[in-house]
């Protein structure tokens, strides 16, 4: 492989090229994604294990849930397209287009999280729940879902564990892209989103406490952008894009395995 010629202290020098033909930040992100894919792999395998070993595995997803999940998939796929267009704009140095495409990606990601949250809330209200979730006051649980939570507790445990982990990744991905697009201007927006998410959700909702993830993210991002302020270049956009596409990729396995394989056919 050809060496890399660089100018350092006014002297042109040749350095041995990277083993993987790319810069360290990108290799670091690939390594993180490989480790994270094993996390999701373990969760998907746990779900599949439960499904194989349980003869009366429920198929609770009716057409409304499948429509919702299909729309969520379309949002994620579209967000991957806008992300790749952001990467393309960044290598041409078009910072205005980069910001626009990143904001479009964030909008699709946010739509995904909102739709998913809405679906979770519906399922919990109908009785498909975990012991750690508070009961929804004034809402009668349907017998079918209440039975599922009692007789096949593996289903809600693996369903909420797997989709919750993915939702957390999408949320943190939106925060990551927000920092790349807007840098420290995104911190007050993030704090505003945290307040809205916290105050707009009822106290019995898991999202009431889950919203604090945004506060934690704002604190961590605040420390990072104030300690190491920088203008993010095309390599940063590309590395953020790798993370975002990975989140999309994982959903391509969750959607058929969890939703389509549990479709209720009337």
């Amino acid at each position, binding site marked *: 492989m050809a060496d890399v*010629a*660089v100018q350092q202290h006014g002297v042109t020098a040749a350095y041995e090229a990277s083993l*993987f033909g*790319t810069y360290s930040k990108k290799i670091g992100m690939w390594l993180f994604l490989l480790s994270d894919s094993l996390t999701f792999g373990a969760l998907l395998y746990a779900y599949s294990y*439960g499904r194989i070993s349980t*003869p009366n595995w429920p198929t609770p997803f009716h057409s409304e849930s499948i429509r919702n999940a299909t729309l969520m998939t379309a949002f994620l796929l579209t967000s991957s397209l806008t992300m790749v267009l952001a990467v393309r704009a960044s290598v041409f140095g078009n910072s205005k287009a980069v910001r626009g495409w990143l904001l479009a990606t964030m909008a699709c990601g946010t739509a995904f999280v909102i739709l998913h949250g809405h679906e979770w809330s519906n399922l919990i209200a109908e009785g498909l729940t975990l012991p750690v979730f508070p009961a929804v006051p004034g809402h009668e649980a349907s017998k079918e879902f209440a039975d599922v939570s009692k007789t096949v507790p593996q289903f809600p445990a693996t369903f909420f564990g797997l989709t919750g982990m993915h939702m957390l990744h999408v949320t943190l991905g939106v925060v990551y892209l927000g920092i790349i697009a807007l840098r420290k201007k995104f911190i007050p927006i993030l704090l505003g989103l945290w307040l809205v998410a916290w105050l707009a959700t009822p106290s019995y909702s898991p999202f009431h406490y889950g919203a604090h993830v945004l506060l934690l993210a704002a604190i961590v991002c605040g420390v990072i952008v104030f300690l190491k302020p920088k203008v993010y270049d095309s390599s940063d956009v590309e590395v953020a894009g790798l993370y975002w596409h990975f989140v999309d990729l994982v959903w391509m396995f969750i959607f058929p395995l969890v939703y389509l*394989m549990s479709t209720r056919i009337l």
Partner: protein
Amino acid sequence: MDAVQVAIAERVAEQHRHHGKAQFFYVWGALLLITGIEVYLGYQNMEPVRMLSILMGLSIIKAGLIIGYFMHLKFEVSRMKWLTMSALVFCLAMMCIFFPDAFRILHLGVR
């Protein structure tokens, strides 16, 4: 980033500049189309193992498109492609070791 990293990043960016925009739209269209086929199959009264095989096959095709085109792995050096993907496939395949136990529970029950 130090000077070497900047030089490598610039070379990678130069490679990206040669990729046409249209291919990303084709991949996006193909991904949406495959998703539509998956949803259609979800409503077919098919035997679960057969359904699972088809859905997982389609998901692997989708994953290949995302990794290859959106994550640009298709355009990386072959060392990068082989080391990352073979490590991932090997580790995920190793997890299959749990499935015989799930079948044991299904067929023999738990004592």
